[in-house]
């Protein structure tokens, strides 16, 4: 049915709440990509069958709600029983009957399925009490995990499109832009450009034909917040886009989605169709006479297309090469028409800001970075997953509070943020409040919100080399400083990790970096040296170890590292034998194991699986046998 007035929306909203209230309980099964990979679809199907077989459908409705990503992917599949708020982790289909019997019907908790807090080994019953969730504030991700992303009525019951209704019936476009300006909202794609400034420039640009574009080409490796938003709450994105289109006077828009995100395309397609049927998209939106429609454009798997001008070329069906930015997209963007392009998370924030007011949003965060920000907390941290926090929380609170610390309590080395355009923030800056300015001062950037935690077993020269190799592959090749600079830099790094580093390499890297920053055409090339420069700034001694002593302090560069088993400590558990991909380890259970150097490829698999501290150790390959001290 089409909604054509504020009263009709309120009525629809009320009915959505009534139908939800008809059931006393709700079983939510996370069907985000992470949980799906762990088999959550079979868990959901088993629930539906079990609930029907046990006659519990009156209690919980006819189906199990399949939600988007709850964020705590590592513990998936996740199941939440509402309204009690009980969180079960790592649920298997065989657990479902017991959950139906004891929890849904019996009202009791099953301790073995609860999350166990590694800090005190205590089981946590409620969703909100798990430290991973307790310290979060969700705006862009407000409904993810609560709603079925393919059911618009469920979304409306959770206030989807309420911001749009308010805007269209109570506000002028100028006031909307003013409100966004006062909220302090800045681009969540990473660069942090002031959203309202873009909108105003586009509104004031000449020409009737304007576009709004949603950048869902989340290419930063290690970031997946946009994926989860598009998959888990596509309506929040659509609502923001329609508001933006109305504010700037655009009638056509595109959502550009990465090729690697098939589920996001499916859920967005369903959401767009449902939004059209309900009068939030298409002709005569909400009966106001405003027309706006939206199409999905699938990316082709090119990192550079996350750059706005390259992205627009790609939507036009062309090769995704950036262009110079002296002409702003808000004057001449997509098809040379005035265009506003914002990131998925930025669009998802818009509806909530207009519904709750600029003051509410600006009340969170720091002086210049307002509101909340989504991050993917991954790497060598205990609790990995997706989080949203007020700007200004310290890295320490994120890594050790929400993240629960480093895996196996190893020493912390760095957090990498901002993807290939960002940098590595060292331990000395753990108390850095995370916002746009502080990260930039530290030589990194916000980027897409990827936070990759690194421990002492991460080689910083290898990390810099990793990003160079990534960027060498992804450079579009249009301008020389980026294309050739990356290639030359990578060649130096290939030497460093292979023990062929020479004095002067660091200086050569710095010269190349300066040239690329100065001469590259787009931000991708200009920012490409950041991972290199930040690792040089904070971890220069690791570079020097590679060049002068030809050793890798982290033991990760294979050409520089050898492994051995310490006979006195080996208890013969046989795990290293099983883990070795090169058949370089001999030994039987409960007997001493030995690594045969002629076969060993120095991959370190034995070191990582060995449960006895110190039983497997690594040492510099070039050090004489009689003088082998672990690094």
């Amino acid at each position, binding site marked *: 049915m089409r909604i054509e007035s504020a009263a009709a929306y309120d009525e629809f909203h009320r009915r959505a709440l009534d139908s939800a209230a008809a059931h006393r309980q709700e079983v939510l099964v996370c069907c985000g990509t*992470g949980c799906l990979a762990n088999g959550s679809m079979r868990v959901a199907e088993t629930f539906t069958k079990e609930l029907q077989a046990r006659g519990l459908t009156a209690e919980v409705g006819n189906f199990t709600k399949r939600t988007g990503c709850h964020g705590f992917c590592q513990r998936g599949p996740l199941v939440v029983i509402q309204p009690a708020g009980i969180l079960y982790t790592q649920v298997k289909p065989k657990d479902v009957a017991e959950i139906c019997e004891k929890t849904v019907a019996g009202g009791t908790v099953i301790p073995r399925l609860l999350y166990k807090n590694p800090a005190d080994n205590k089981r946590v019953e409620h969703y909100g009490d798990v430290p991973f969730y307790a310290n979060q504030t969700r705006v862009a991700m407000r409904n993810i995990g609560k709603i079925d992303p393919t059911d618009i009525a469920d979304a409306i019951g959770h206030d989807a499109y309420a911001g749009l209704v308010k805007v269209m019936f109570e506000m002028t476009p100028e006031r909307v832009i003013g409100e966004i300006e006062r909220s302090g909202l800045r681009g969540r794609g990473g660069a942090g450009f002031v959203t309202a400034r873009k909108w105003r420039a586009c509104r004031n640009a000449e020409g009737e034909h304007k576009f709004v574009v949603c950048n869902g080409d*989340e290419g930063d490796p290690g970031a997946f917040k946009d994926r989860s938003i598009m998959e888990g709450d596509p309506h929040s994105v659509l609502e923001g886009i329609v508001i933006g289109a109305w504010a700037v006077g655009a009638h056509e828009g595109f959502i550009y989605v990465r090729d690697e995100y098939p589920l996001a395309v499916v859920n967005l397609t369903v959401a767009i169709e449902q939004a059209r049927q309900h009068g939030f998209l298409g002709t005569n939106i909400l009966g106001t006479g405003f027309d706006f429609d939206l199409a999905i454009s699938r*990316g*082709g798997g090119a990192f550079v297309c996350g750059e706005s001008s390259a992205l627009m070329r790609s939507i036009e069906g062309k090769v995704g090469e950036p262009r110079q930015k002296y002409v702003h997209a808000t004057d001449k963007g997509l098809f040379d028409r005035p265009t506003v392009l914002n990131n998925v998370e930025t669009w998802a924030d818009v509806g909530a800001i207009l519904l709750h007011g600029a003051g509410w949003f600006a009340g969170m965060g720091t002086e210049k970075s307002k509101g909340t920000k989504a991050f993917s907390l991954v*790497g060598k941290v205990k609790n990995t997953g997706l989080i949203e926090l007020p700007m200004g929380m310290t890295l320490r609170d994120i890594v050790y509070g929400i993240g629960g610390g480093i895996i196996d309590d190893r020493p912390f080395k760095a957090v990498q943020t901002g993807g290939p355009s960002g940098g590595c923030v060292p331990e000395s800056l753990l108390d850095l409040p995370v916002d746009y300015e502080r990260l930039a001062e530290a030589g990194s950037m916000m980027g897409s919100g990827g936070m990759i935690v690194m421990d002492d077993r991460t080689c910083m020269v290898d990390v810099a080399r990793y990003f160079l190799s990534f960027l060498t592959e992804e450079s579009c090749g249009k301008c020389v400083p980026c294309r050739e600079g990356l290639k030359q830099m990578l060649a130096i790094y290939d030497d460093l990790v292979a023990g062929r580093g020479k004095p002067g390499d660091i200086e050569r890297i710095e010269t190349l970096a300066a040239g690329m920053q100065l001469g590259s055409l787009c931000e991708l090339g200009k920012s490409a040296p950041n991972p290199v420069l930040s690792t040089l700034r904070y971890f220069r001694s690791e570079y020097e170890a590679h060049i002068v002593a030809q050793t890798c302090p982290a033991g990760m560069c294979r050409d520089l590292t050898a492994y051995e088993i310490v006979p006195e400590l080996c208890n013969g558990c046989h795990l290293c034998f099983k883990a070795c991909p090169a058949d370089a380890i001999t030994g039987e259970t409960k007997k001493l194991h030995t690594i045969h150097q002629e076969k060993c490829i120095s*991959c370190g698999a034995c070191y990582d699986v060995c449960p006895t501290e110190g039983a497997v150790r690594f040492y510099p390959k070039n050090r004489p046998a009689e003088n082998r001290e672990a690094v």
Partner: protein
Amino acid sequence: MNGQPCVNTAPLDEILARYPASETALIQVLQDVHRAYHYLPCDVLVKVAEVLDVPLAKVFSVGTFYKAFSLVPQGRTIVRVCTGTACHIRGANRLIEEIERLLKIKSGETTEDMGFTIKTVNCVGACAMAPVVIVGEQYHGSAQPAKVAKYLAETEAGHEN
């Protein structure tokens, strides 16, 4: 591409009918072609260029620029190893080596029987479960080199059914 047998054009006609005959549709058409044929066959590209009225050189330019496209036939099952940052620091390299060893091909290559193609992907956005291997459509999180043979066997069995 000489000597390559002409492919069945029925899926192509269906794809082209779905889009307006203009350059704007080029990437979307190529994506659907890739899905239908598992690569971009040469004679299909010629027809796409004709129908969309885009120079053939431009079609090739787009077809070679984007990573989603391949100009050579792909295996029935694509094994994608994520090499995003989180996967990299949690041992994606070891997974690639093990898959290469088992399938006796290098990353980017296809087995002789056209069963598997190994590809590396920059990031599949499942970083919380790093490292990740995707065999066909099946995601394997916290993947271990020792289990790679099992991941592959699951799909090979699927092929025989």
